[in-house]
């Protein structure tokens, strides 16, 4: 039965077989970012333009004369993916109006890592959201500047050791909590915000599809484990992403038109220790610090649940 032969499993039946982010890219073994992008482009399809910030993804995907992209792609600089996407979006709108471009719907993606999003690119992102461009901003968050050698970003979590927030005699590593980018994005009153992780491909694909179908700006925050920067074994990438969700370190939720919805509520969350223990960047932490991290995670999780409950009550 040829049909069964083509679609033997559950997952492949639902997912496009086209690889728009090509094999042979130069990502590290077990790269969470490459995995996330591969999945996202399956949801996006070929009628997509990607505006990439400088960073690992840009470097691993475009060493001249090779490219991993099978969709039109542009890289300009580090801090301006959202601004470049703004220009692309405006251009395509006016070119369509003047009959000088395909009339098909084109997904416009601005793509950056956590540094390019939460630090140097935050302003361009904020401006593009405020101006209501019709595009999707995707932050592949690996919680440090991996491309330049694992320096701290504002998305680096409390207690993580990086090359510019190293753990040492006088320091536990990063001392500030992770900047809450999805919430900051949502505070811009944009219609769609979601957190996701490639360890949950179906969830990620569904959210990406929603984001692309949203009129106006949308934001996807994708936790992308980095074996090199987090110092974990390459085969654990997917598992660590899963543990981030199961421990409540990285809750999966959507904020649609300002209303927050938890996608998975972990009644019994695993202790964060389970998540931390695989990662070299947390190896220096003692029981007190781990307890502090547990406290931060708990507090934030409870806050989220409360907000979700409140938002649900508004729907009555």
């Amino acid at each position: 039965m040829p049909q069964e032969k083509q679609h033997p499993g559950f997952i492949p039946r639902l997912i496009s077989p086209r690889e728009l982010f090509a094999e042979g890219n130069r990502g590290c073994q077990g790269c969470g970012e490459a995995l996330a992008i591969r999945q996202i482009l399956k949801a996006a399809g070929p009628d997509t333009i990607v505006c990439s910030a400088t960073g690992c993804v840009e470097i691993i995907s475009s060493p001249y004369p090779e490219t991993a992209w099978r969709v039109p792609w542009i890289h300009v600089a580090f801090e301006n993916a959202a601004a470049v996407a703004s220009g692309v979006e405006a251009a395509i709108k006016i070119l369509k109006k003047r009959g000088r471009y395909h009339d098909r719907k084109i997904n416009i993606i601005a793509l950056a890592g956590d540094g390019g999003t939460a630090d140097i690119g935050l302003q361009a992102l904020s401006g593009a959201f405020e101006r209501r461009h019709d595009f999707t901003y995707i932050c592949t968050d690996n919680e440090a500047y991996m491309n330049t050698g694992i320096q701290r970003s504002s998305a680096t979590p409390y207690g993580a050791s990086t090359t510019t927030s190293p753990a040492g005699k006088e320091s536990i590593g990063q001392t500030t909590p992770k900047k809450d980018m999805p919430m900051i994005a949502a505070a811009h009153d944009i219609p769609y915000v979601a957190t996701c992780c490639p360890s949950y491909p179906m969830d990620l694909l569904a959210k990406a599809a929603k984001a692309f179908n949203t009129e106006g700006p949308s934001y996807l925050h994708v936790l992308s484990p980095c074996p090199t920067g987090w110092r974990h074994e390459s085969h654990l990438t997917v598992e660590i992403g899963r543990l981030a969700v199961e421990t409540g370190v990285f809750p999966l939720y959507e904020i649609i038109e300002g209303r927050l919805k938890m996608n998975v509520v972990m009644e019994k969350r695993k202790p964060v220790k389970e998540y931390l223990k695989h990662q070299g960047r947390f190896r220096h932490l003692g029981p007190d610090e781990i307890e502090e991290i547990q406290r931060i995670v708990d507090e934030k999780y409870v806050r989220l649940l409360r907000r979700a409950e409140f938002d649900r009550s508004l729907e009555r």
Partner: protein
Amino acid sequence: MTEKKPGWKEYPLAAVISKPGSCTYHNTGDWKTMRPVRDDSKCDKCGFCWIICPDAALFMGEDGYYEVDLYHCKGCGICAHECKKSAIRMIPEEH
């Protein structure tokens, strides 16, 4: 005799790459020290290994099993680690 490298006139404008997905010619398969091997008797063809491979290095074969594209597989081991049926294991690369 060494190959003659292209001169400046031979490069495209602004080094734009006009061959989409051309990195597929790049052999990242030679990065690996371990390679995945499938046990057909355990595999239920669910496809999870395929969708969680960062390198798109699995492809569906004639019979519905997912074959490893050894030219691109970097040997990260995620597929083996994640397989719920333990149908994939990593074995040392021959040398």
